[in-house]
């Protein structure tokens, strides 16, 4: 069985050629899967918050959309990926708890931030399953870049 790397919250991982990257339990967090199909280089980040600039002392760059995605990109380039070949698939950003507040939910903010950062980096989004009110698990297969989503009580599906 090929190697599987688990990406924890506010964390990321990159892998080349084969194996799987997996992140479990995306609630309002957003999972960003980047893939270079030519070099077979995959990267997955589990992003907690949208913007590092809102904090005085942002310590871990993998926590925020604006810093995690460039970091992931850099790591992927270092093992052979080319930015122009990258495609993105995103999942998560849901609102688990139905607050009776009119404010934008953390999940929505995260999705919006991820879309913006990917647009700036000119990485197209080719698949997504975002929003709603369920937690998701995201698997990225390094060999072919397929992304599989699963949620509690429903079938796995590809995005």
């Amino acid at each position, binding site marked *: 069985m090929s190697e599987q790397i688990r990406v924890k919250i506010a964390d990321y991982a990159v892998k080349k050629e084969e194996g799987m990257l997996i992140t479990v*339990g995306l609630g309002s967090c957003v999972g960003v899967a980047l893939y270079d199909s030519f070099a077979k280089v995959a990267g997955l980040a589990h992003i*907690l*918050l949208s913007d590092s600039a809102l904090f005085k002392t942002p310590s871990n760059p993998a926590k925020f959309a604006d810093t995690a995605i460039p970091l992931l990109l850099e790591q992927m380039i270092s093992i052979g990926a080319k930015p122009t070949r990258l495609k993105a698939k995103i999942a998560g950003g849901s609102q688990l708890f139905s*607050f009776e507040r009119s404010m934008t939910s*953390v999940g929505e903010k995260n999705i919006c931030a991820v879309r913006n950062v990917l647009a700036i980096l000119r990485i197209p989004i080719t698949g997504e399953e975002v929003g709603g009110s369920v*937690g998701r*698990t995201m698997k990225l297969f390094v060999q072919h870049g397929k992304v599989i989503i699963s949620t509690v009580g429903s079938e796995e599906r590809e995005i």
Partner: protein
Amino acid sequence: MPELPISEEFKLDVLKEMGNIGAGNATTALSTLLNYERVNMHVPEVDLCPLVDIPDLMGGAEKSVIGIYIRVFSEVSFYAVFLIDFESAQTLVASLTGQDHPVMEEMGRSVLLEVANIVTASYLNALSHLTNLTFLPEPPLLVVDMAGAILGTVLAETSVAEDYILVLKTAFITATGNIEGNFLIIPDQNTLDIIVRMLVDGACQ
């Protein structure tokens, strides 16, 4: 009176005691609800937990659980989270109502929310007596999902900038072992200092 220097270790001790008293009250409330069935409580664990490990605190991020979340908002703010598995929730609902209401239907949900309300309120009462602070809990919210998704969402809600999060975790189990669950308190960073200061000042008077 000059300000006492407070070490991090001492802070944790104070919080552990606060957790003990609060959770003791909460457990008594639960026992009362269950017709005085004995409810055992583990000594609260107070830990500075690495953020990345929090979704796994409940024995696996992928484990499907019922989570009830209460935000406490006042001079200080923190988040109280109950996590309980399906069977325990079902037993809890059945013991309280005398009927097998499915936990995912209106009545079952309502019972669980009420339990969370009562237990949290007794926790806060104890804390309020100790600190002279007023705590205002918001209505509880219930969700069924992966433990990791629930805890991750709570972390995002607290907008934590730190890489280590203070967590007070209390596990409880009934004497017959049919109901078990966890009660977590995740305070804001400022909250921590305010509470410790109030407790220490109180102790010095």
